[in-house]
């Protein structure tokens, strides 16, 4: 007879990869972010939903160090990354963004050089990080484009000649080329038609499973959040009104705004 010993439940002892505390940002009289805090654990996907103007994209831009908030702290639990990242100087910020943070924008014009080739766009990331061998650049660009399921026979075509879905794949390839610790997605599938949206989501899902990338995804589309994320944060008027596991929040919304949101979807 075998004795099955049951262990008592234990606390998760992994440290969060991303910790942002009390981030505030105003544009003149408009308070875009009021004391927004977020924690993301390694390998986890955090979804942020909210209506237009709720501050979700501003928060993501702060996480990508593109915007400096008025107050708050932000840290990443990575070797040789210390302290409040909002205090970094331009140079350190650029190096950190290039090597540790990948971002996919809703508008490909923000993330891509439209007149350079697609492989060149991916290679640029590696060049900023200091890679100076042509063969390595070519191979790594090909690998990254392949991983984001981009048709390789078009890898030297400029993004301006590509379809919206393919442009998003180039952005994704660029973002994952250096295997960043954190991947930020700002409405990655908005503006794509439903079938292409599904394909891009499939790619993201597969990448997440294969590489265990930590992601923060911003969307107003609850379907996208439901497919991809583990945890969700609902934002309104620059504040977090509710957060929790995706199933919990979407099945049993507590805040009236979340209830409206879920209701509107169904």
């Amino acid at each position: 007879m075998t004795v099955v010993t049951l262990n008592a439940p234990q606390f998760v002892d992994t440290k969060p990869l991303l910790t942002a505390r009390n981030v505030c940002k105003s544009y003149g009289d408009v308070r875009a972010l009021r004391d927004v805090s977020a924690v993301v654990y390694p390998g986890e996907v955090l979804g942020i939903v909210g209506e237009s103007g709720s501050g979700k994209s501003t928060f993501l831009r702060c996480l990508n160090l593109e915007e400096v908030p008025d107050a708050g702290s932000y840290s990443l639990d990575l070797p040789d990354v210390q302290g409040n990242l909002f205090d970094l100087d331009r140079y350190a910020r650029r190096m950190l963004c290039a090597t540790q943070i990948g971002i996919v924008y809703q508008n490909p014009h923000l993330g891509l050089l439209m007149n350079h080739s697609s492989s060149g766009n991916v290679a640029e990331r590696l060049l900023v990080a200091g890679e100076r061998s042509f063969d390595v650049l070519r191979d790594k660009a090909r690998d990254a484009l392949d991983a984001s399921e981009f048709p390789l026979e078009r890898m030297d075509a400029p993004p301006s000649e590509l379809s919206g879905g393919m442009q998003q794949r180039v952005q994704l390839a660029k973002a994952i080329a250096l295997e960043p610790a954190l991947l930020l997605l700002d409405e990655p599938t908005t503006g794509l038609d439903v079938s292409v949206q599904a394909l891009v989501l499939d790619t993201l899902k597969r990448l997440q499973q294969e590489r265990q990338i930590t992601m923060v995804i911003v969307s107003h589309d609850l379907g996208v959040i439901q497919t991809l994320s583990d945890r969700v944060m609902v934002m309104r008027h620059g504040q977090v009104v509710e957060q929790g596991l995706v199933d919990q929040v979407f099945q049993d919304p507590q805040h009236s705004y979340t209830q409206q949101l879920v209701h509107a979807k169904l």
Partner: protein
Amino acid sequence: MSLKSLTKTWEPMSYGFLDASAKREIRRKMLKAIAVPGCQIPYASREVPMARGWGTGGLQVSCTLINPGMQVKVIDQGADDSVNAASIRKFLARVSGAPTTMNTLEADLIQSRHRIPEEKLREDQILVLQVPNPEPLRPVQPNMSIARQMHADADYGRMWLQLYEQIVRSGRVMQGASYPSLVNGRFVMTPSPIPRWDVPKMDMAAHLTILSAGREKRLHAVPPYTRVEPLVFDDVPYRVEEHAALTCSRSGARGFFMNEIPQGDGTSTYEVSDSELGVKTIRCRDGEAAQVGETWYKSGEMV
């Protein structure tokens, strides 16, 4: 003390054409440029009796540096006798009284467009290059404010991106002239439209090079004994033009940068681009007294 005793007496023309304050300003900017090798320093570009784009930047620097004891040489595309070179030389001689020369070895001040002489320059010589576009980042970043930030951050990834795409498209680096080069390990500069052949001459050269763009109102400098490295990939070596095996049809000089002269029957002959080197080689061949100095390239190889 009266005000009159402090002011200079009226003269119809100031020495070296530019007025004293203009020369002082350019001198200060030149010192700044030498202090920060490869960094573009803005300056107030003055009017000179020549159209913008014809070498006004170089001319202003020459007018500032010149003194009656200097021998001046002016080159245009390697030739001393082209119209542009001849008129600039005449102008410089007229406003400064400085003697002119065509001999690279005798010259103290050399103003040049598109070429660096084939004979090695010495520590006591100054090379002034005319630059049409001093901004190497312009092809990749048309916004000059952002380009300046990129210089400040040493953010030169896109320069390599340009080379990457040339190799992808054409199988080799297509940049023929103005090859972007890293100065002293810090600033990327465009070395004016000199051919790839001439860029290695700047690396650890004994002479001072000042590159000045009159229309763009900026100048930069390569001080003596400063590293100048053309941007390359680790696995794609820098290549100069394949002129090593060509022979000059007039002087018989071999292993220098050549001008191609197309012939009626579809073939071409070649003529050494540094015209004074060709003249000296012919003089030597004819037994006249002419001294060809040490050259950067020896039998077509950079030493």
